[in-house]
């Protein structure tokens, strides 16, 4: 089907909490940016843990290209909500970590990227010397330079304040335009999802099912002006009502 990564009817239940994922099917094409919106505790992170190989789905199959990856690790690059940089490593060494797990890291490439995002001066600084937003940029570059071609981002901006958050969204897009990996992005924020994505999946509350798939028609590169366009606001309203109809408006 030409997808970079695809999930086919993934089902997962925990002994303690019962069914969490019910027949989740989704895909991300090569170089595509896809978001998942769903209420708190619906099972979004659980989907990621299945793809990452930390959890084995009870049913269903996952593919990277043609290869089945159920239970396998190291197939995706990852960026969590917390920067999760190693505090004893410098910024540069942290960026290299993702590569280091699989191959000899390319220091020059990492330095070039730090320069591109104006963090050259901080190459040899430690994470505690940087702001939260800066650390999150480092964490994204670490994921982007990891050898895997698929990126999983789990609410990467939700711990940041509103202002930094919007800056980060624009920044993320600009960087991603330069190195287009396939991205699967989890968020609570409708606006963020529309602004960033090519497609959006809406999840129901737990047990999570996919209730709707929405294509976002806007051309790239996108600018902040987009947020004021009628079509953008209309999409926002549509998604909002779809979520509300599913009983999830409390999450937005």
């Amino acid at each position: 089907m030409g997808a970079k990564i695809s999930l086919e009817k993934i089902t997962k239940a925990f002994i303690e909490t019962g069914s969490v994922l019910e027949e989740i099917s989704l895909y991300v094409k090569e170089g595509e940016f896809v978001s998942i919106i769903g209420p708190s505790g619906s099972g979004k992170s659980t989907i990621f843990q299945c793809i990452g190989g930390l959890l084995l789905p009870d049913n269903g199959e996952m593919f990277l290209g043609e290869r089945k990856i159920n239970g396998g690790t190291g197939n995706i690059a990852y960026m969590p909500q917390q920067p999760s940089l190693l505090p004893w490593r410098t910024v540069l060494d942290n960026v290299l970590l993702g590569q280091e797990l699989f191959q000899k890291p390319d220091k020059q490439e990492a330095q070039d990227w730090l320069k591109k995002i104006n963090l050259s001066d901080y190459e040899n600084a430690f994470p505690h010397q940087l702001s939260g937003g800066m650390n999150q940029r480092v964490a994204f570059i670490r994921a982007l330079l990891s050898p895997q071609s698929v990126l999983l981002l789990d609410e990467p901006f939700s711990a940041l304040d509103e202002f930094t958050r919007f800056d980060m969204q624009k920044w993320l897009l600009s960087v991603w335009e330069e190195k287009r990996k396939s991205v699967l992005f989890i968020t609570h924020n409708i606006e963020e999802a529309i602004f960033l994505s090519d497609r959006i999946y809406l999840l129901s509350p737990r047990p999570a099912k996919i209730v709707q798939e929405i294509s976002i028609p806007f051309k790239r590169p996108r600018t902040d002006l987009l947020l004021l366009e009628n079509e953008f606001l209309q999409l926002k309203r549509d998604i909002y009502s779809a979520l509300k109809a599913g009983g999830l408006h409390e999450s937005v």
Partner: protein
Amino acid sequence: MVLLLFFLLWERVTHVKEIPPWLLPAPSVIFKEAIASYPLFFPDIGATLKLAITGLLLGSTIGFLIAMMLHLMPSMRNAFYPLLILSQNVPIIVLAPLLVIWFGFGFLPKLIIIILVCFFPVTIASLDGFSNVPGELKHYMRMSGATAMQMFTKVELPNALPPLLSGVKIAATYSVMGAVISEWLGAEKGIGVFMTLSSSAFRTDRVFIAIFIIVFFSMILYSLIVVIEKKLIKWNAKGGE
């Protein structure tokens, strides 16, 4: 500062109350005696320090290796943990004569005593450091496909370095004391020997010299490790600038 005040007070009290020197000599008397009998105990310092430092290095290394073994092989943990606690519950005073019976009066039984005293704080501190890795770091590493070995070398080991060094600091303060105690068992040279001889001759001033030497070198060793710590740990306010 507080130390200076303490010495001044001590000096005053011994003079005013006319306490006989064999009971409590004045600091000035101790100091004069230290300079006078310097050649007498100088070789003792060397012997004790050699013992203390060898013991500290070996003890810390063994302590670290034990921690690593217990951490990487959890099945060993249940078997060996009680043994570890036990090793600390047997009083050294009881163990020491036994060690002499088994190994004689040489360097070895003394070394074993210091190792026994030193390894424990290092083991406990390292184990703590290995297992106290923030959950989000572990999660990132697992999601990114790190192997168990990579998790250990890239995360758990560096995470354990600060507590490990704290453990070595504690061990360092014990090591000089441990060396002196082990010398009480019988030795040709050493501060412990100097101390026993002085005390049986009621040379209280010399006993105090021995005490000051112990305190002094414990502090030197401790500061040395603080310096190493500053060099190695630059990533947080605690260790770095």
